[in-house]
């Protein structure tokens, strides 16, 4: 009997702590960004030797921080429906790899700068925009993270740098390709891009 109660209490505790955690989108994003910065600044991971470990840690951190499926859906918009299940899965995988590769260097560039999280603005019932500012040597760069609540976790589905939305930027590029071509053509372009690295 005692065991049974303990068995019931655990999920309850989990549920409570999860809901409390999900209550603060800004804190979630801040924690994740701080986590990435910590990896980047780790003196033990500097140089060529630490490069691989560093990349793995960053990937783990970005998996925790981003919802790549949601990000992909919103980038493709209604075109997502033209993809088969298999194509959707491949798209998410390729897009994630391209984004991670491309932004790795960019994130590294910001390691010395200070990041201030300023506020959160509700966008809809389950989405929030978390605003931050990177204090640069020559002017500040506003970076907004758009997060969605899923399974009681806030996950990033868009990053807006200086007013430019990441998914919006890719949507305009994909639209040109998908306008006159089948999904397979876009996947092929992405395969080449991801493979070239």
């Amino acid at each position: 009997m005692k065991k049974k109660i303990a068995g019931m209490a655990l999920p309850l505790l989990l549920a409570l702590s999860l809901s409390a955690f999900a209550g603060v989108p800004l804190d979630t994003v801040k924690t994740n960004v701080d986590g990435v910065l910590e990896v980047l600044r780790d003196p033990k991971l500097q140089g060529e030797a630490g490069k691989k470990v560093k990349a793995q840690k960053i990937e783990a951190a970005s998996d925790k921080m981003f919802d790549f499926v949601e990000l992909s859906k919103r980038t493709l918009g209604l075109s997502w429906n033209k993809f088969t299940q298999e194509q959707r899965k491949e798209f998410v995988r390729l897009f994630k790899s391209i984004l991670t590769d491309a932004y790795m260097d960019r994130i590294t560039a910001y390691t010395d700068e200070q990041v201030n999280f300023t506020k959160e603005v509700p966008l809809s019932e389950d989405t929030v925009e978390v605003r931050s500012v990177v204090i640069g040597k020559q002017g500040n760069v506003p970076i907004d993270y758009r997060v969605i609540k899923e399974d009681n976790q806030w996950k990033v589905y868009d990053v807006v740098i200086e007013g430019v939305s990441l998914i919006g930027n890719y949507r305009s590029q994909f639209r040109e390709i998908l306008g006159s071509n089948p999904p397979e053509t876009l996947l092929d372009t992405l395969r080449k891009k991801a493979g070239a690295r």
Partner: protein
Amino acid sequence: MSRRKPGRDRRGRGAPGWALGQALLIVLFLCLFPLHAAADGPDPSAGAGGEPRQLAGEVGPAQGGPEDKASDQYGNVTEEEAGGVGPRIADPLESWNRAMYHVNDKLYFWLLKPAAKGYKYVLPESVRGAIGNFYENIKAPIRIVNNFLQGKPRYAALELARFFINSTMGVGGLSECATTCFGIAGRDTGFGQTLGTYGVGFGFYIVWPVLGPSSPRDTVGWVADLALTPTTYVSSQWISPETVGLYVLDKVNYTSFHLGDYEALKAAAIDPYVAMRDAYVQNRKKALEQ
């Protein structure tokens, strides 16, 4: 914030609603993990026979869970979920623009980037920062006049204050004292944005050699801003060795702080030309809203 709102609603409905929600959550959890519970059950008393059962129990939810979730996650999107279409710009001159994009791309890699790299190597960061501040300060008339024209006299006054403080205490604009000493934040703007607030649209996309992405509206804005920049009047002509030299120094100095930005944008893009065009439109649209 969006979280706070439903929170308030819940409180409005009263404690029973909250308790019901909590109870539902518990039920949901119990339904979701019956196999875990079953597996946990025999575990302590586990002899040799307990093990296979435990294994079976663990395999069950591990397989079923993610798969169910995945098929749901990868399902169709509705129009609402897909999100709106972003801002667009007409591009009737695309073939000219693409050609100019390539010209500017080469100008960057062959001239601007090596120049900025050498410049960065020679001059310490503090000096480059001071030069950047000087250019920023001397462009104050653009911000003062246009904030005023956009019906933001408060920002016009703040920019005026910044200009006075930086020009005096900041030693002729070499130091950004207004912000660092007094925390005065201004608002960057220009005549293109003023036209935008008056309802003038972009027109269409145009890429100028050297100057880069623009539109008829922002081109007019650029010329007007040039007229409000004191350095334009160092010689009697708009285009002279002096004005061009000052422009190049500004550009090289700026680039020395932003090496790698363009490369990153290009590397991340599927079609760099379209990526640049979209970034231009999004950035200008956003600036108008602020």
